[in-house]
């Protein structure tokens, strides 16, 4: 086996500008998808828990659809399928010096819609995990459902779901590679492009894998710090229920 060490080190330590741009795009897409997922997830969770069938069934259907089909299919469907049917076409979005091109928008939207379903399930579990007594006490004080949610249930649910959400973001970082199929030049597509000119496949993919390991490890460190902070908080007594929900992913 021949491994081109100098090339490997060069790519690892002084990567092409395109690769760095790919790294930023990977981060942008992941964060964007996560934000959309969070924004969708909470109302979906509330709709899913609602007594009204007009809210509950659409939410259920959305979650079923997003969790029952492959993300890769969702990505192509949203970018190409919707455009083919004339439902939604993506055009460049220009904000001052920044341009977010259509396929990046589609990629973020697809990742976000997919994530929204998983977020909805996490939010739902988190809300359900808050003791019913909390809601009853709030009711008995004359608070209305919106107030109860905002001041009592959500603050407690958020602590419970912080870690599952963190795990989801780790998955999101990795899933962001899938948008390469619609031509978004994130790290994987950049690597493929460089490879199609240099053919140092093994070296290039090793570098790519290392970059992902670093990204996911950094995020893992952030999560451990948050966990530690929460545990310390719990020890000091400024919180109650933590750490119930630790699993439940893709």
């Amino acid at each position, binding site marked *: 086996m021949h491994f081109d060490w100098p090339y490997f080190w060069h790519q690892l330590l002084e990567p092409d500008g395109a690769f760095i741009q790919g790294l930023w795009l990977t981060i942008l897409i992941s964060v964007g998808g996560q934000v959309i997922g969070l924004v969708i997830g909470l109302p979906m969770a509330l709709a899913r828990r609602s007594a009204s069938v007009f809210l509950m069934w659409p939410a259920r259907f959305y979650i079923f659809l997003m969790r029952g089909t492959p993300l890769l299919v969702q990505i192509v469907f949203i970018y*190409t399928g919707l*455009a*083919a049917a004339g439902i939604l076409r993506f055009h460049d979005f220009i904000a001052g010096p920044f341009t977010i*091109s259509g*396929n990046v928008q589609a990629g973020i939207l697809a990742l976000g819609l997919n994530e929204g379903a998983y977020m909805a399930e996490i939010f739902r579990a988190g809300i359900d995990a808050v003791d019913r007594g909390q809601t009853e006490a709030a009711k008995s004080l004359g608070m209305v459902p919106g107030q109860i949610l905002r001041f009592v249930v959500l603050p407690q649910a958020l602590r419970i779901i912080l870690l599952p959400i963190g795990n989801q973001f780790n998955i999101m970082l990795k899933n962001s590679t899938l948008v390469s*199929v619609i*031509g978004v030049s994130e790290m994987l597509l950049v690597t493929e*492009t460089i490879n199609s*000119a240099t053919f140092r496949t093994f070296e290039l993919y090793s570098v790519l894998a290392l970059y992902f390991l670093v990204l996911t490890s950094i995020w893992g460190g952030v999560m451990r710090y948050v966990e530690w902070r929460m545990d310390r908080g719990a020890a000091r007594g400024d919180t109650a229920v933590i750490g119930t929900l630790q699993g439940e992913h893709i």
Partner: protein
Amino acid sequence: QAALPPAMMKSKTIRYCSAINLPPMEFMSPQTKPEGVDIDLGDALAKSLGLNAVYINMPFAGLIPALLADHCDAIISQLFIKKSRLQVIDEIPYMFSHEAVLLKPGAPKVPDLEALSGKKVATVTGTTATVLLDKANVALKAAGKTPIDIVAFPENTQALQQLQFGQVAAYGVAYETARYYVHKVPGQFAMGGPPYFKIATGIGLRKNETALNQALSASLATMMKNGTYATIFKKWDLGIDMLKPAGG
């Protein structure tokens, strides 16, 4: 008949890597059988060597890595003969190709690539169109103009459809493919101008596969002589791409 590599003698099969997505060169029939110029040629070459042909479909950018990885014995996928490629593989020339820019009907024609300044242009990852557009961008930047926004897709259908839906303004692709779509889906696409960038196109082989190289070269020569070659190019209406006109 020249000797073939032992593994191939044993399996009686030649494995071609191909991005079966670029009509009329290679594409899948509705029954998902490969067809096209390259497929006809590949089949004919295999037959003359007494072998079966199998086609391994993969994204264009993965072709040379796959060949180097010994996932196939040859690439037959409208692979242009370029210096950078010849550093890692050998190529047996068998035709000429051209490049083209595909547009939506009614869009202003493009005399050269620099005319695409500021536009969003689709390509397929790893193809020569990408390289040419990159070069044009260097020139544009030097001239202080807005560069072309290149969006590289892993495969042709994706790229083409984005033009169809107006999510990109143009598609940089081989002339042969561009022409195919202009005829195949009337009213959807238009040529941006005459073909440009004539380039020899070859069958990709690993370096040092001398036996296979000689066997294929000899078979190709025979086919050019006996008219098989010309028949194939006539069938697909690509006479302008022939290496040597039949009988000439």
